[in-house]
């Protein structure tokens, strides 16, 4: 049971949150210019690193806000928490 520091509410149990997968995935467009391959990549292909993973979390049973988490997939340590739209901390960029 991870302890995640919501940037708006503070530390809360993992069960209050939902993980939304890898962060910083840009939606390609306009649609006409996007190849099938590029679109498939956007829909399905995600990084699966051993180590730092930048991911989106939703505090669904709390403030209802999305935010970003940098988490070590080996130790499950939460290395940083930052708001949607913010760039990842420089030292944690994979």
């Amino acid at each position: 049971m991870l302890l995640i520091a919501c940037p708006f509410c503070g530390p809360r149990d993992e069960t209050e949150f939902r993980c939304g997968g890898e962060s910083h995935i840009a939606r390609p467009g306009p649609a006409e210019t996007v190849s099938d391959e590029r679109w498939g990549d956007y829909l399905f292909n995600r990084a699966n690193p051993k180590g730092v993973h930048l991911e989106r979390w939703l505090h669904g049973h709390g403030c209802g806000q999305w935010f970003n988490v940098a988490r070590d997939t080996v130790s499950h340590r939460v290395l940083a928490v930052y708001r949607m739209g913010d760039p990842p901390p420089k030292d944690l960029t994979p």
Partner: protein
Amino acid sequence: MTAQSHRNPTGGRIDRARTLGFTFNGRYYEGHPGDTLASALLANGVHLVGRSFKYHRPRGIVGSGAEEPNALVQLGQGALTEPNVRATQAELHDGLAAASVNCWPGVRWDIGAINGLLGGLFPAGFYYKTFMWPARAWRAYEWFIRRAAGLGLAPREPDPERYDGTHAHCDVLVAGGGPAGLAAALAAGRAGGRVILADEQAEIGGSLLAGGGTIDGRPARAWLDDATAELAGMAEVRVLPRATVFGYYDHNYLGIAERLADHLPPAERAGRARQRVWKVRAGRVVLATGAIERPLVFDGNDRPGVMLATAAQAYANRWAVRVGDRAVVVTNNDSAYQTALDLSESGVAVALLADLRAEVPAALAQRLSRAGIEVAAGSAVVDAAGGTRVTSAEIRRLGADGTTLEGPARHVPCDVIAVSGGWSPAVHLFSQSGGRLRWDEAIAGFVPDISRQAEVSVGAARGTFDLAAALAEGARAGAAAAHAAGFGDGTATAPAANAREVIAPRPVWRVPSAGRGKAFVDIQNDVTAADIALAAREGYSAVEHLKRYTTTGMGTDQGKTSNVNALAILAHATGTAIPAVGTTTFRPPYTPVTFGALAGRTVGPLFDPARLTAMHPWHVQAGTRFEDVGQWKRPWYYPRGSETLHQAVARECRAVRTSLGIMDASTLGKIDIQGPDAAKLLDLVYTNAWGGLEVGRCRYGLMLKEDGMVFDDGVTARLGPQHFHMTTTTGGAARVMAWLEEWLQTERPHWRVYLTSVTTQWAVAAIAGPNARRLMAELCPNIALDAIDFPFMAWRDGTVAGIAARVFRVSFSGESAFEINVPSSQGMALWQALMTAGAKYDITPYGTEAMHVLRAEKGFVIVGQETDGTVTPGDLGMDWIVGKKKPDFVGRRGLARADCKRPDRKQLVGLLPQDPKEVLVEGAQIMADAAAPPPVPMEGHVTSSYWSATLSRSFALALLKGGRARHGQTVPVHAYGKTSWAQVTEPIFYDKEGEKLRG
């Protein structure tokens, strides 16, 4: 047998003033408060407690605590029965009834023991090798195997007991209340930290309860009493006895199973929760979980009477029980010398102590010889003879390398063999926390090495067996943990204790065999040293493979006494070093936790909350049958008298088609959307265009996922230039709300749109049928109701039966219909007013089943019934709703994939069964060719299928490959071994022009 034949008249931590009666396998015995079932049985001279898992060999009590592999019993009867309880951890209470597991007809004469005689036929991997051929016979084999194996029986009745769950936070959690844990809790508590000390036993104290020694110059037990009293007086310290820390999860989250009432007779448990699971978030964790003694692996080491040396010692000291009349002690380390002395003092004649080491500790040996106990150096017990109880031990000298035997055999008569094969630190919780282990040659055991979480192991749990050192470690760790949380200066003074001699074990993992007996490694799962050697020869040389192939360590004891022996023997067999073999994964729980405790209070009606509409009491009174839709209780149908489902639904449908029906539609998801960019949001998430929708009008919309597949649908109304009211499917409400929020927050954060779920703010009654407008006209003086002023797909504010209402002209039934929204508090009043005023039209409440039939007659799809996440708008024949000119919407690019345009995609069609009385099975497969041999190519499936009272025949909706081009064809439809034929039609069966719903 005299009562408690093996109980000494004095000593032990039992209350002799009270006598408790209990039964074991139907026979009556007595014990005292403070006893476990195991100590009470031994006090009555009972060693034989069960039969083994595979060979059905007689088995006795081996340990004195959580490590017990053998003495599993079925406790209690009826609904209160509990299987596979360790007799060593079951506290005795008056009237306790226990029985052996895994033996039939009885423990003394067991029919499965034939397996023991056929032992050569049951090698490692026996089941894998024998029962895999022919494959189809597995079902027959399985029946026999499941009956022959297995342990106790699960209760068949619902559990009548109550369980609790609670959450807690603390600065320091101490797991284990032995000397190291107590020292840690005292140091952390004195510094002022919030401390939880949990110990699995009824009494705090751990090894101090059974051992001797002095602390701070006084008997250890006196120090223990002071320590527990001091902890009890600290406001910020919570001491939990009978509480097992069973799991160590991420971020210092731990589970504790506390047994609140198991030690009481059932009659005294009334009104109390039986068990409670604590979920604790701890700042720091001190693991003081002690160590588990290992058996030695020699022939016949499973005979009743062969037990761990510490257990024999604990029974003597803590429970004043003589475990036998004449004992042999065999050890590879120093600790069992004290056992020999304690046994002797308790009145057990100790015939001999065999020490595997050629060089024995001089001082200890001297004490034994003063007590008249012979020490046989460099010797081992190589065979235990006997049947339902050990009768003698064969002693031989060991060769220098430990693999050969020398000299003559001595047969020493005895009824107990106390065994010590060294110590394994209880690193279970440490390993669960993600910590890495290290093999420590000095103690021949795995010890904690690298931590991953904020924890520290102390005392025997980290291989520190000396009492003085364990106390010092505990105190240091407790003070440091409190300091890390901001309490105290991080220092503590440790109580002083007399130091013991250092343990220097001689690991001989498999004592050489003098004959052909079985030497057990995993005594619960009947895995022998020979099984492990065989598995290694067959290539199962990785420890995780070995475990699964031989099942070693996979019993309810999770190999507490056997795992290290098993992997050491594997290492020997494969010529590998023990650290290179490694351990299997330690998983929670440390000891089994009941499902009841894990479920806690979230059972029955509290398992999942039920959502009820404002009109629910009316439905209940009307005798409605309900259907669960998400968490909602929705009226399914309203039977009159003895009507069946089908009779009621036919009547409800006829009423809607010919006069007037009323449905509780309150459960539809409703989202209030406001802001300057509200229309932009709708344009993004719906496939059609929303900017041009006038205030006062509604529009149907389809939502797609980015892959182009249908996700939800519903009607959205424009309440104002920047204000919309969206409806969603009942089950999709939360999902859609989250979906919109996600798009707004993560992709369009600059848009100014605000979403509010208003599902439960509105109660909704939908009235439908040719008389709907007439009823509205009576109750609704301030809304113009004719089809020109209030057209289909419009909404109006007004009053209905005097209640402020928002009325939508939408229809899911195909009839002229009005959905009347009122504040939830007015829902019941509205419903009653409509029922009263509608009586002249025989207004008929209808449920979800009739609604499904009515909408299917119109070919209206239900997301999740006609769709399954692989269906596009085009597949549903709804290309008209996909905005061709819209530059973007969610799913637009996904729909443009070539695969979404294949003409042979599964498309929505209607089906009319050839037999108009036959209702096809929903989910039935449409075949390409009814005569084709299996595997038959499947072309589609039935998604909805009903009897239509309106059409006086059956009909269905289906998804069929290239279906739109196949109208008129007859196709075979197969389900449950039966093939039917049906004609493919367009998916609409009633009022194709839509005159009724617009009229």
